[in-house]
């Protein structure tokens, strides 16, 4: 927005998303307080019953609320998200805070989240990066560089993720050597994720489509009217 690439309207979405997250935090901490310091005799009895059963039974352990860890919100209702147009399994829905995954980059063990800059990023999962069609590769490069010039264009990184170990690619390639990424993101050959600068999922597709990517990018920055 500072660079004139997004309208002031984007600031309202920051507020909307933080209000949602704050309400979630409040709900969790209210529930924790009710469990830790019961306000009635019955509430105390239930709490003690849970603790007693928790010694031997898994279901009761799950009810022990000793203060839920502060965890990032799933911003599934955010209007910055582009809804799925096909089926995906798992939790990495539009609005989800990204799950991390161990990766290999240039021979080093790295973590996926550490590889993402504070920019929009397109994660492209491919089985065989070496045999990517030349025009597809050219489109990726165009996306990444249209980002670099033009005042109106937004910065977008394009990152390939592949189970295969391939040396020669012009784009940065992360090797999903444990298949954790494929598993957590339900990624198949061709699956594409658009990631926000704050590492939430903005959109995802089963196949790359430059027009859809641009539309999702516009939506995620309030440039879609």
């Amino acid at each position, binding site marked *: 927005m500072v660079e004139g690439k997004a309208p002031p309207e984007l600031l309202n979405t920051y507020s909307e998303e933080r209000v949602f997250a704050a309400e979630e935090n409040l709900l969790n901490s209210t*529930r924790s307080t009710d469990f830790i310091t019961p306000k009635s005799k019955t509430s105390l009895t*239930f709490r003690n019953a849970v603790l007693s059963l928790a010694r031997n039974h*898994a*279901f009761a352990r799950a*009810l022990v609320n000793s203060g839920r860890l502060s965890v990032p919100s799933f911003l599934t209702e955010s209007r910055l998200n582009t809804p799925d147009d096909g089926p995906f399994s798992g939790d990495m829905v539009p609005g*989800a805070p990204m799950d991390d995954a161990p990766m290999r980059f240039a021979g080093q063990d790295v973590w996926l989240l550490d590889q993402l800059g504070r920019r929009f990023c397109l994660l492209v999962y491919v089985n065989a990066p070496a045999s990517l069609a030349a025009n597809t590769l050219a489109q990726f490069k165009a996306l990444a560089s249209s980002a670099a010039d033009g005042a109106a264009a937004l910065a977008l990184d394009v990152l390939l993720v592949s189970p295969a170990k391939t040396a020669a690619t012009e784009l940065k390639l992360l090797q999903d050597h444990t298949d954790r990424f494929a598993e957590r993101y339900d990624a198949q050959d061709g699956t594409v994720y658009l990631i926000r600068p704050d590492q939430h999922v903005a959109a995802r597709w089963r196949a790359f489509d430059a027009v859809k990517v641009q539309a999702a990018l516009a939506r995620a920055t309030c440039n879609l009217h």
Partner: protein
Amino acid sequence: MPLNLQANFFEPGKRYFRAFTPGDDFYEALIDTHRDLSDEQSAMVNAKLVLLLANHVGDISVLREAMHIARKDI
């Protein structure tokens, strides 16, 4: 079917991203059910709840197992 002692709470049509959420949803509803009641009234509500849920479960061998576990360590 034996008594299920694994976490088993859910609500149809609701999607959970955190494992603790459905259990917390239930527990909150349970405590809310007792809000502003006297101890005696709460005891009555609990007794009714047990009867309602026992009838829902139906299988008396399962209920015997639950009653046995509930009495332990008292």
